[in-house]
C-alpha cells in the first residue's frame, strides 16, 4: 500500500482521484456503486447564481471513442443547492467541491461568496470553459484578460481553495494558466471538453440541439495529456488532469505528465464504479512497481 495522499494548496486528498463536474451528479446517484470514502474528492454539478433550464434536447451524440454533449449548465441555482442539496452532502466521507459558473465576473463572485459560507465545502472549481452556453462560460476562458477578470473577482470573495478549470479551445493554454495563477488561483484543472460537431446526414441536421457541443471520452485523452504536460511546466501551482481517463493506467499517464490529481468524467457513464476502481488500480500499480509514494511518479517523465 503506497502513500497516495496529495495536496492541492490547503486541500488534502486521500488519493489523487476525483470525479469530474457534470458526470457524477451530486455523488448521491453513485452511492450504490462506489463508496465515497474511496475517492479523493468529488466535483459536483456546475452551479450558477440563478437556476438554469439548460439547452433543448437532444443534448448528446455518441462519437468514436467518445461523446458530445450540450447540456448547457442545467441546475437549480446556488441557493437551491445550499438549502436542499448541501444538507445531503455535508457528511459525505470525501472532499465535496462545487463547480461554479457564471455570466459575468460579479455574478461568478456572488455565487462563490455563497459557497464560501458552507463549512463542509473546502474548495470550488471555477468553470470558465463551458462550451455550451452563450452568455459566459467559455467566453472568459479563451482570453487571458477574461480569465484573469473572473479569477480576480472571485478571489476577493472566496478564501478557501480555488481551482480554475481551463478550456482546451484556445491557442495557448499555458498563457491562460499563467494568467489565472497570477490572479491567485490555487490550482488549475484541465481539460474541459473540446468543441465538436456531428451531423445526421439523412436529415442534414446537426445531431445536437444547439449545433455544437463538447467532446469527451478517450478520444480526447492524448490532447489532454499534452496540455497537462505543457501547463505543469508553465505554472508552479498544482495541476489537476482530466480528459478521457477510463482506467488506472490512463490516470497514471496524467500523473506522469505532471498532474498532482486527476478527475474521472465520462468513464462514470460506462462504469458507475469506475472512479473507485481507478483509485484501487493506482494503488496496485504503484505496489507492483515498487513505488512507495505517488509523488515519485508525478511529473516524473524520463527524458
Amino acid at each position, binding site marked *: 500500500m503506497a502513500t497516495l495522499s496529495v495536496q492541492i494548496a490547503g486541500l488534502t486528498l486521500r488519493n489523487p482521484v476525483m470525479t469530474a463536474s457534470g*458526470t457524477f451528479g451530486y455523488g448521491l*446517484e453513485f452511492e450504490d*456503486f462506489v463508496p465515497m470514502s474511496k475517492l479523493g474528492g468529488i466535483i459536483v454539478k456546475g452551479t450558477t447564481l440563478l437556476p438554469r433550464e439548460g439547452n433543448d434536447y*437532444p443534448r*448528446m*451524440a455518441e462519437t468514436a*471513442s467518445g*461523446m458530445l454533449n450540450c447540456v448547457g449548465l442545467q441546475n437549480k441555482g446556488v441557493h437551491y443547492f445550499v438549502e436542499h442539496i448541501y444538507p445531503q452532502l455535508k457528511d459525505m466521507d470525501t472532499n465535496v467541491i462545487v463547480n461554479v459558473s457564471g455570466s459575468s465576473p460579479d455574478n461568478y463572485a456572488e455565487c462563490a461568496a455563497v459557497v464560501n459560507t458552507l463549512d463542509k465545502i473546502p474548495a470550488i472549481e471555477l468553470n470558465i470553459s463551458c462550451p455550451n452556453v452563450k452568455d459566459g462560460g467559455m467566453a472568459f476562458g479563451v482570453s487571458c484578460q477574461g480569465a484573469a477578470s473572473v479569477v480576480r473577482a472571485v478571489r476577493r470573495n472566496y478564501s478557501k481553495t480555488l481551482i480554475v478549470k481551463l478550456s482546451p479551445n484556445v491557442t495557448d493554454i499555458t498563457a491562460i494558466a499563467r494568467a489565472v495563477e497570477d490572479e491567485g488561483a490555487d490550482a488549475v484543472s484541465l481539460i474541459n471538453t473540446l468543441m465538436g460537431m456531428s451531423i445526421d446526414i439523412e436529415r442534414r441536421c446537426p445531431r445536437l440541439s444547439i449545433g455544437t457541443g463538447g467532446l469527451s471520452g478517450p478520444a480526447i485523452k492524448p490532447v489532454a495529456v499534452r496540455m497537462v504536460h505543457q501547463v505543469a511546466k508553465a505554472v508552479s501551482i498544482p495541476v489537476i488532469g482530466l480528459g478521457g481517463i477510463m482506467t488506472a493506467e490512463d490516470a497514471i499517464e496524467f500523473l506522469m505528465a505532471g498532474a498532482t490529481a486527476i478527475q474521472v468524467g465520462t468513464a462514470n457513464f460506462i462504469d*458507475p464504479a469506475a472512479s473507485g476502481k481507478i483509485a484501487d488500480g493506482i494503488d496496485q500499480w504503484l505496489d507492483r512497481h515498487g513505488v512507495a509514494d505517488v509523488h515519485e511518479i508525478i511529473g516524473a517523465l524520463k527524458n
Partner: protein
Amino acid sequence: MSSRSHALLRQQNSKIVKYAKDFVITSNEQLDLRNILLKLRPADGNMPTMQPGQFVQVLSPANKDTFLRLPISINNVEGGQLWLMVQMIGEGTKALGTLRSGDTLNLVLPLGNGFSVSEAKGTVLLVGGGVGIAPLLYAGRALKDNGAEPVFLLGARTASGVLERDLFEQIGRVLITTEDGSLGERGFVTQHSALQSEHFDKIMVCGPKPMMVAVAHYAKQQNIDCEVSLENMMACGLGACLCCVEKTVKGNVCVCTEGPVFNINQLTWQL
C-alpha cells in the same frame, strides 16, 4: 422540483438499490430479421427486483462507435431469467446479436420508474409499436396478477413484425394492426376499430414517438388516463449527465430517473 418532491425522489431512489452486475446469456433467439430476444441469468444467482417499465443499461461487446451503454427495456422476468428484446440497428445492438449462450454481459439495473401497474384498475389498454412492445409483456403480466384486465394493441409494418404474439395471447386479448394488412386490421394502431367501439380505463404506450403522440392525443380526447414510455437518448442512466431530458410541466427532467414512464399530463406535448 420542489424540495418536497426532491426529498420524495431521494426516498424512492434510496429504496431501489442499483447494481452493475454480470449476467450470463442462456439463450439468444432471432425473432425476425431485426430483433432478437436475449435471456440471461445473474452470474451471482441474485436477481434484483424489477418493475415493469424499468430498463437496464447494457455494456455491448462492441466498443468503438458504441462507446456508451445501451438502454434496453425489460421484456420479462421469469424463472430466474431476465428477458431483453433488442432491435439490431447500430454496431452495439448488432454485436449483441452475435452473442451465444454462456457469454457474459454487464448490466446496470434496475433503472427508471416503471408503469403504475399496481394502481391500475379495470380494463387497461397496452399499446405497442415495433420493438416498443417489449415492456408491455412484463407490464401485462403484472396487471393481470393485480386483478386488472390487460388488452394488448400491437402495431407493426407487417405480420412478421408482431413479436411475441403467442406470449401476449396467454395473458390477455390481443388486437393487431399492420400497415400492409397482412395481420389484424390494416393501418396504424390509432386506426383500430376497438378504439371507437370499446371502453378502456387506462392506456399504457411504448413505441415510436409519433405513435405515442397519436395515442396520447386519443387518450386526451377520450379523457383516459395515459402513460407513455419515452426513449430519449441517454448516457449515464443514473440522472447525472442530464442528457436525456424531456420538457415537463416542472421543467426539464431526466427520462432515466423520473421516467422513462410519464403520465401524459406531465408532458408538454401539443395534444
